[in-house]
């Protein structure tokens, strides 16, 4: 009974959010998330079940929030890097470095949790800065520049842990990835605070404009007096910081630092999250909240497949199909084409994702894009 009411409430809230987002770019990412949840509502028993234990909430949806935190954190850094026309492949390895640094300081060196966390964040930010120097300072292509750290980073993490898997039980460290705040997982707070920080950095200052400008047209931005190198350096540094946070959460989740496996392939999930969130890999316009929603979408997909007992060997296949579908629906030309093929469908599809036609004052374009 309680479940029934809370579900209804959930869908009313979700529906209103979706309604408010109509015409926005991230409508499609949020909509895709909604479809996925709707599927689970009907076909995955227990997915929507929420339980209160010791004043904390438990349930699949809460799991998604908690487990998805890593990808959401990564995607916040990644989205800015991608907006400048680059990509950061090293975030998974940087996660491993952060985990290694913090647990070594905590366990082997007997430092306080605060010092361990701070050191891990400083080191991962430096790792991001290293990428920034390679890309902005030396002009190395982002894929190559970050590939260096992607490959070497795990080696560095192995050196730090001396090849061991370090286990820890320090309550502060364990709290990071397993604790609760306001009845919800603490990781959610972490994501929201980081989102707030990113939002402040790029939307309350002019950095966001510069990032989009550099990503859209590097040369013209330089002509306009934008310090493109500085902008690029900053986004890679921030991406390193976000990877550090994600690394701390990851090792806290499993109460140990495993340099070989922490953050493995998560850079790919983060890139996907950004793309699902509506940001183009070519750079330019970016969508911070879209990236977070993209992260949620990917985690929901993973959890759904897991809940439906899809073997982990074949789960990448349905995952890939779903992601392709979301990306296609974000493309206006695909929707237009689809609406030609499926007439009645088209009437619903067309107005949703595209902005309402603007009133034209003077109607003279040389070649207006339809």
């Amino acid at each position: 009974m309680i479940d029934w009411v809370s579900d209804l409430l959930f869908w009313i809230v979700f529906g209103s959010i979706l309604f408010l987002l109509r015409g926005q770019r991230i409508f499609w990412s949020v909509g895709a998330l909604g479809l996925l949840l709707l599927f689970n509502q009907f076909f995955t028993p227990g997915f929507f079940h929420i339980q209160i234990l010791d004043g904390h909430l438990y349930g699949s949806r809460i799991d998604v929030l908690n487990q998805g935190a890593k990808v959401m954190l990564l995607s916040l850094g990644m989205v800015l890097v991608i907006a400048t026309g680059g990509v950061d492949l090293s975030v998974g390895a940087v996660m491993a470095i952060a985990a290694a640094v913090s647990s070594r300081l905590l366990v082997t060196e007997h430092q306080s949790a605060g010092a361990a966390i701070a050191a891990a964040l400083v080191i991962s930010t430096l790792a991001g800065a290293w990428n920034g120097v390679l890309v902005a300072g030396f002009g190395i292509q982002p894929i190559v520049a970050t590939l260096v750290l992607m490959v070497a980073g795990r080696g560095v993490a192995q050196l730090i842990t001396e090849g061991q898997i370090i286990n820890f039980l320090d309550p502060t460290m364990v709290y990071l990835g397993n604790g609760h705040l306001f009845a919800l997982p603490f990781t959610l707070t972490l994501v929201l605070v980081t989102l707030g920080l990113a939002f402040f950095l790029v939307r309350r200052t002019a950095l966001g404009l510069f990032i989009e400008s550099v990503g859209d047209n590097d040369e013209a931005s330089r002509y306009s007096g934008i310090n493109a190198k500085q902008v690029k350096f900053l986004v890679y540094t921030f991406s390193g910081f976000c990877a550090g946070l994600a690394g701390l959460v990851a090792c806290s989740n499993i109460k140990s630092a495993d340099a070989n496996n922490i953050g493995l392939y998560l850079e790919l999930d983060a890139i996907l999250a950004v793309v699902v969130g509506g940001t183009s890999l070519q750079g330019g316009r970016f969508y911070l909240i879209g990236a977070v929603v993209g992260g949620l979408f990917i985690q929901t997909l993973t959890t759904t497949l897991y809940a439906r007992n899809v073997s982990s060997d074949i789960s990448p296949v349905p995952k890939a199909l779903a992601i392709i579908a979301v990306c296609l629906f974000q493309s206006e030309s695909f929707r237009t084409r689809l609406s030609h093929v499926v007439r009645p469908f088209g009437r619903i599809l067309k107005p949703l994702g595209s902005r309402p036609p603007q009133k034209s004052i003077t109607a003279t374009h040389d070649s207006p894009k339809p």
Partner: protein
Amino acid sequence: MANSLLEIAGLTKGFPGVKALDAVDFAIQRGEIHALMGENGAGKSTLIKVLTGVFPRDAGETRLEDKIIAPRSPREAEGLGISTVYQEVNLIPHLSVAENICLGRQPTWLGAIRWRAIAKRAAAALARLDLSLDVNRQLSSYSIAIQQLIAIARALDISAKLLILDEPTSSLDRTEVEELFKKLRKLRESGLGIIFITHFLDQVYEISDLITVLRNGRRVGCFATQELPRIKLVSHMIGKAVHQVEALEQKRASTASIRSEAPMLEAHGLGRKGSLRPLDLDIRPGEVVGLAGLLGSGRTETAKLLFGVDRPDQGTVRINRQAVRFNSPRAAIRYGIALTPEDRKVAGIIPNLTVRENIVLALQASRGSWQRLSVTEQAKLADRFIQALAIKTPSREQTVRNLSGGNQQKVLLGRWLATEPKLFILDEPTRGIDVGAKAEVEKLIQSLRQDGLAVLFISSELEEVVRQSQRVVVLRDRRKVVELTEGEISEETIMQSIATHNLERPAA
């Protein structure tokens, strides 16, 4: 009309909020060069795009050799014999000439490409234009002019009946244009129909037989070139009466005495190896200095050195008597220098950002990221320049990519005016924009001058340089040839200076 090659009747095409073509008629015969004229946004490009199947039409009928056609893609149009060469060379720089000509229809044998056949076919296509090139060399090793001809050769290789040239001359210099025209005349004799789109009035009169004028998506009329006075053509294009146009044309810069003020900028022996020989230049407040010369004579290089895009390796620059050294545009902007670059697309507009963002960009960049202009300040600024420069855009939130060339140029002007510069370097500010916008840009330059700005004006169109400048510096082969002052400035003296080989002043 027995000989009619292509006939278009009542062609209509609308875009959301815009009627780009409104029942347009058009006809071209075999062996005819037909110019399509109109301001930016008049519908020329749309007409071509509908004709070649890039856009679907809303209404109307097209007949090619009396058969109704409705191509749905440029490829289909090519198959029917309608080939198009666009303003920007749409070839692939890293492939060879032969590959470029045969790309997409390469002769194969059992799926393997027959390289020798390709080379042969390419050579034959080039021979039609009396060109003999090494077809195995990379395309990018040839000049833009040659590349343009190669693009035409590619278009003709498809056994074309109708060739459409959309602004083929905008990146060519005088002699190259001559060369191109020679080839076009030859093609005309062979019975090809050619539709020619350009902004250069001179060229239209030089090459075309008929002129069709479009305005705001409608056909104004079709005229025999020889019977249409130039002033009438302009008046048809911009929709103003002849006497109004004359007033615009004759407005020459007032020859007010240049103030005896100290130069705002002085360059001594400024140069860079391989790009510009050492040159002296000074510009005073309230003065427009013209920079004339052929394409590649060092005009753009001069601008880039002054603006800090390229670093000079010799010479000094002083601004208000203070020695300065720029190693980036950022540094130059700090001293009140602004530059609208020659290549709007590459170095000017940020295509996917809005008009508002494009306008505030330079000012915001000079303020740094912490002192962000609030949304209301940005909107105010954008609205101010949209109004002051009469930028035609549905709203300030329109992406710049969707504006016409002239309006993009105005957005760039707005971007720099917002920074309140002391020296404005305008590199080809009127290239590729229509007559109306041109006049507006010229008016703007004069009003900036009167406000005490120093302006360095670079243009390929000599009459413009003559009309605008108080002094003209002529460049040839990356070297300053002569500096013409008031009274000496005329198209003839400039051309003479360009043509004369010695460094002495030509007799005026």
